[in-house]
């Protein structure tokens, strides 16, 4: 077990203190620019006064340990919330060279999963929706990936109407480690998936693919921060959205390339098809690059279904609605086609 990784996780007290320090999410905080922050209830431990007048003085005790220092770096409300709510961490080690397939499901509104994956391990991890009893659920996943390990993390759950859901992933990758993170979201309410990925070892590779198929009043938000902290690390982001009704999606993706990180390759692409006048998407790419010899790209497209493709299908006798569904399905499936054959790909494709 990676002792340092475990020791640096915040305790409930530290998380509460840090949350008091940070205050409730506000729109002027860049982590929450697009999120309907008014929908987040103030946690009881913060006190009702806190919601209107956040403190400016850190309530946490002065830093004494590495854990204290680590928690001071945590700045995402959603990452701290489950720990502050006393989520009992489920800590699991997957030993070097092991091959494991697992399904994870929290039993409570607040969950915390800690995975320490050893060198060269091969892991397929599906995240299932938890059973919740309240109006808010928050899960946190701390995943440490050892050298040359190959990990796929994915979720493709049926549409969920939970009013508010947060899912935060904190991923550290050692040299040569591959992580493929893939998700399909059809939820009908408000949600946010945040990922903080640290590519710490040379040649580490992080591949992120998300698909939102939303309708009605759904409001789903993605926040990614990828730190390239070693040479020749690679990150790929592909987010696709199919939005109907008044559905809203935001994608806030940051890539930070550190000093001396030569040969980094990073790409970010967001493709959205708006099926109605009232659907909307907001995209904010951020690139902070502190080295010259890197290749970083970002792109964003927003449009409707291709009129010529629609005409072609319909001119062969296919009804308009079925033609639309065919094009939407192909747009959706293309998100995951480049993935290697694996349980994740099979599950994702079958859910479309």
């Amino acid at each position, binding site marked *: 077990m990676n002792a340092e990784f475990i020791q640096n996780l915040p305790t409930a007290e530290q998380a509460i203190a840090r949350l008091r320090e940070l205050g409730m999410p506000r729109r002027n905080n860049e982590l929450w620019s697009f999120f309907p922050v008014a929908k987040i209830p103030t946690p009881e431990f913060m006190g009702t006064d806190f919601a209107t007048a956040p403190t400016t003085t850190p309530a946490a005790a002065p830093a004494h340990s590495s854990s204290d220092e680590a928690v001071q770096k945590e700045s995402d409300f959603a990452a701290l919330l489950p720990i502050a709510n006393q989520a009992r961490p489920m800590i699991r080690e997957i030993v070097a060279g092991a091959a494991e397939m697992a399904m994870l499901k929290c039993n409570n509104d607040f969950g915390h999963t800690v995975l320490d994956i050893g060198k060269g391990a091969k892991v397929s991890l599906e995240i299932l929706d938890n059973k919740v009893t309240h109006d808010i659920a928050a899960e946190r996943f701390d995943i440490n990936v050892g050298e040359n390990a190959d990990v796929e993390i994915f979720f493709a759950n049926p549409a969920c109407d939970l009013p508010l859901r947060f899912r935060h992933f904190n991923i550290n990758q050692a040299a040569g480690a591959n992580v493929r993170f893939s998700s399909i979201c059809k939820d009908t309410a408000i949600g946010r998936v945040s990922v903080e990925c640290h590519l710490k070892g040379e040649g580490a590779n992080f591949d992120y693919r998300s698909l939102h198929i939303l309708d009605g009043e759904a409001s789903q938000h993605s926040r990614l921060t990828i730190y390239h902290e070693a040479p020749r690390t690679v990150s790929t982001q592909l987010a696709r959205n199919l939005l109907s009704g008044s559905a809203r999606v935001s994608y806030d993706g940051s890539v930070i390339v550190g000093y001396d990180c030569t040969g980094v390759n990073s790409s970010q692409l967001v493709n959205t098809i708006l099926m109605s006048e009232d659907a909307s998407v907001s995209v904010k790419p951020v690139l902070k690059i502190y080295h010259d010899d890197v290749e970083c790209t970002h792109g964003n497209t927003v449009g409707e279904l291709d*009129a010529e493709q629609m*005409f072609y299908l*319909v*001119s*062969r006798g296919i*009804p308009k609605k079925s*033609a639309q569904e*065919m094009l939407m399905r192909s747009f959706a499936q293309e998100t995951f086609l480049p993935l290697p054959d694996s349980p994740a790909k099979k599950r994702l494709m079958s859910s479309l």
Partner: protein
Amino acid sequence: MLSIKNLKASIEDGTQILKGINLEVKPGEVHAIMGPNGSGKSTLSKVIAGHPAYHVDGGSVELDGKNLLEMEINERANSGLFISTQYPTEIPGVNNVEFLKMALNSKRAFLGQPEMSDEDFKKLCEEKMSLLEMDERYRERGVNDGMSGGEKKRNEILQMAILDPKVSFLDETDSGLDIDALRIVANGINHIMSPEKAVILVTHYQRLLDYIKPTYVHVLRHGKIILSGGPELALKLEDQGYDWIEEAK
């Protein structure tokens, strides 16, 4: 069978492209439409198919007595019309075979017939692909996705063969085909053709008409059919071009 009367159509900016087309096509006939670039040949096929970029200003198009212009696009196809455009659209991600099956079963549903079983559809596909000398790779590919010009045209004729339309309007099906592919595609069209069906071919060259013998040849220019004749007209056009027609008037 297909009766086009005084068909006029324009594009969005109001420019009229078709200025009164008249054409009668009877079962068993092959009509070749020739004409210089920009004369309205491709527009004619798209207007009949119902392409939303064109506005019909007047006239009628009837297939077996039913006005196609009053039908939805898919209803026109399911009534027996097949249009192959000059540049078939690529649709990556939509599997060729699934698309064909969906199209065929849409037509069958329109005609009140039950869905074709997977087994029967597979046999039908194999038969038609063999006719067109197509290999198995076509099954796995997206519709026209990444295909060469010739492959796309062959794929169009495969669709025609499977959908079995009454009237096929093939716009420059010979473009992009090498000599062997031209022969295969033309043989495919001849095989599909029957006394109950009709084909309208748009072409610039006699070479396609060497394989598919036309009943009539028409010259379309400035949005109108200005001359009609037998197969010999195509030979004369190949030899002398189009200017002599205007000069003769």
